């Protein structure tokens, strides 16, 4: 049995409300809140980045996998759009921080918001192939959204980390399926600070086409249908899209709700659907079936089916739950502080 043996998330304390951003741009906050299904978003502090959040999330994952000696972790793959360095990996720093070096393979992944599930997919494959005993797949981002762009209301920060292995599995991976096409709906070129996007083109021909294509392919491959699942998690660029795609596929709001963090978290890009999986595992029971479908612009979706095991009851409470981090210890900041934290204030030289 190969699957998840430990999981953890991390959410920074700072938050900014939609109203605070809308005020600066003279925008209509209620219509943004309604249109995006979003109240507020998380903001990283100046000393937080993809690496620090990955370490925090991985520490929580290790707490839930006390049997895993970090030295036995054979691979760390971090998916992000905001690796702090263009040249120099994030993975080695995380590996060093958790004591997993030097007998380990590291790589940083990038595929817009899908990069996190990419890392999970590869370590799952390596464990299944017997090449490594344990592997870490991480999705983390301090997401960028240009000032004044619709993305600024949602681009948030957070991380999720998953240890895959084949002993004391808490959620067995039953099936995977991926769905990719060349669809340029959202992009950021080298040396550009903020991503650009195709507006409404990011919806139907991009997000909806790939998620439905992946979910349908996955269910067909596994011989399952929506009612066979207790929970489902879709990528969450806003609060509305996951609910709409769920409805299109035949899932109920109840199946989606536990993993739907976006309304209070924002879009954590590579961390988005993986963090939804952590909050769903937090409330799941042995035997529950969970489907996860990510989405990354450019474009593609990775799909997974997990079955939760008895192990969940032993490890669930060993680390902070995702909803707890979302709902507690919050510190609201104003736009000026946000602009400073996010490096949006530049001096002439």
């Amino acid at each position, binding site marked *: 049995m190969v699957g998840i043996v430990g999981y953890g998330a991390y959410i920074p304390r700072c938050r900014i409300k939609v109203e605070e951003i809308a005020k600066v741009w003279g925008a209509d906050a209620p219509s943004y809140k309604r249109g995006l299904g979003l109240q507020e978003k998380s903001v990283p502090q100046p000393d937080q980045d993809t690496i620090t959040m990955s370490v925090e999330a991985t520490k929580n994952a290790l707490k839930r996998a006390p049997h895993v000696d970090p030295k036995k972790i054979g691979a760390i793959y971090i998916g992000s759009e905001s690796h702090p360095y263009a040249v120099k990996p994030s993975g080695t720093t995380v590996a060093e921080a958790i004591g997993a070096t030097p007998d380990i393979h590291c790589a940083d992944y990038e595929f817009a918001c899908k990069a996190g599930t990419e890392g999970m997919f590869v370590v799952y494959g390596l464990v299944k192939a017997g090449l490594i005993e344990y592997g870490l797949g991480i999705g983390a981002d301090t997401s960028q959204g240009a000032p004044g762009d619709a993305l600024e209301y949602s681009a948030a920060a957070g991380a999720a980390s998953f240890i895959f292995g084949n002993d004391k599995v808490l959620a067995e991976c039953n099936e995977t399926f991926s769905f990719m096409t060349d669809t340029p709906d959202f992009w950021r070129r080298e040396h550009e600070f903020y991503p650009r996007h195709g*507006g409404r083109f990011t919806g*139907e*021909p991009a997000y909806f086409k790939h998620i439905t294509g992946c979910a349908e392919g996955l269910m067909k491959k596994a011989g399952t249908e929506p009612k066979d699942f207790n929970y489902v998690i879709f990528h969450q660029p806003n609060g509305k899209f996951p609910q709409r795609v769920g409805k299109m596929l035949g899932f109920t709001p109840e199946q989606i709700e536990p993993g739907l963090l976006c309304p209070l978290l924002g879009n954590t890009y590579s961390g988005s659907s993986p963090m939804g999986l952590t909050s769903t595992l937090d409330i799941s029971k042995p035997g529950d079936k969970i489907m996860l479908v990510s989405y990354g612009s450019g474009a593609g979706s990775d799909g997974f089916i997990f079955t939760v095991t008895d192990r969940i009851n032993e490890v669930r409470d060993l680390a902070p739950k995702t909803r707890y981090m979302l709902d507690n210890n919050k510190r609201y900041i104003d736009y000026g502080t946000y602009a400073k934290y996010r490096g949006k204030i530049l001096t002439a030289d």
Partner: protein
Amino acid sequence: MREVCVIGVGMNKWGELWDKSIRDLFVESALLAIKDAGVDKIDSMYVGCMTSGLFVGQEHLASLLADYLGRTPISSTRVESACASGGAAVRCGFIEVASGMSDVVLVGGVEKMTDVSGDGATYALATAADQEYEVFHGATFPGLYALMAKRHMHEFGTTRDMLSAVAVKNHDNGSKNPLAQFQSKTTLEGVANAVMVADPLTLMDCSPITDGAACAILASVDKAREISKNPLVKILGVGNATDRIALHSRKSLTTLNATLEASKRAYEMAGKTPKDIDFAEVHDCFTIAEIMVTEDLGFFEKGKGGHAALEGKTALDGEKPINTSGGLKSKGHPVGATGVAQIVEVVKQLRGEAGERQLKNPKVGLTQNMGGSGGSAVVHILEVM
């Protein structure tokens, strides 16, 4: 002048058609119209398109479309009159057949609007206003029509609910049109409470950005009798007129003079009066536009257009059904295609092919297509033979 008939119409579903290019859109509807008409040879074609250069970077459109329709070396001409380009193309085809120069002419309209961002579309559309005296100073089309709406409210007591009633009615009609971009209904409150675009116009007072095309085949009555299996629909009257393009140059903000003049000419040519018109497709780019147009066409007294909408007089079962297709508001507004799509709807109604939204035995229909904030207008009057 020879008499001219519409012997075939063609249109596909409109909307955000991400996987269709401008040539796909046009050729698909042209083939439908050719098939509907049952013709194997067309003598010439006219294409209405407002700004394919700004929307998709393609000019020389008439030749491109003749090429992809497989009809080179046919004569093919693009016609531009902003949002009235489609109506103007129909008029050109009418003139060519009426003059005896051609027997069968394809008239079409097309616009591919979703390849640019919202800002890009706003910029492209604003080129239909007076760049130097309106647009450079910040005016956009919602802004210009909002000025007209405010003035109409001030002069005639037109209310928020009257504007909303136009959108509600057009969405009701559009919900019965399988080719419409939006087939959802709305309510007076839904329109009033939508996001504000330009006071008093909310998002639901505005027509959408749309990809689409529409085509029709025109023929002389003699030719039509020879080849057509459809009930013949004759174009009785055609009127085209212009107005001062910038709002500030006009004597009145509440009269669309180009529409008034174009309709006078069409009525005179057709030998009809507003009372003779059973139904009409009009240019509701904004809800206020439909109210003003129904007044300027002589359907309702000036200042009473809003009341007529609110009282249901323009509904499918009203005394003067307006925009049975859903109008620009619900069917969509691919600017260059709109004027031709109005002809498509009138022909379908007159032939009794309008499905769920079919009127009871209509005989005479009118189309009114308008450019920019009303700087040009084309009116056609059609009768089933």
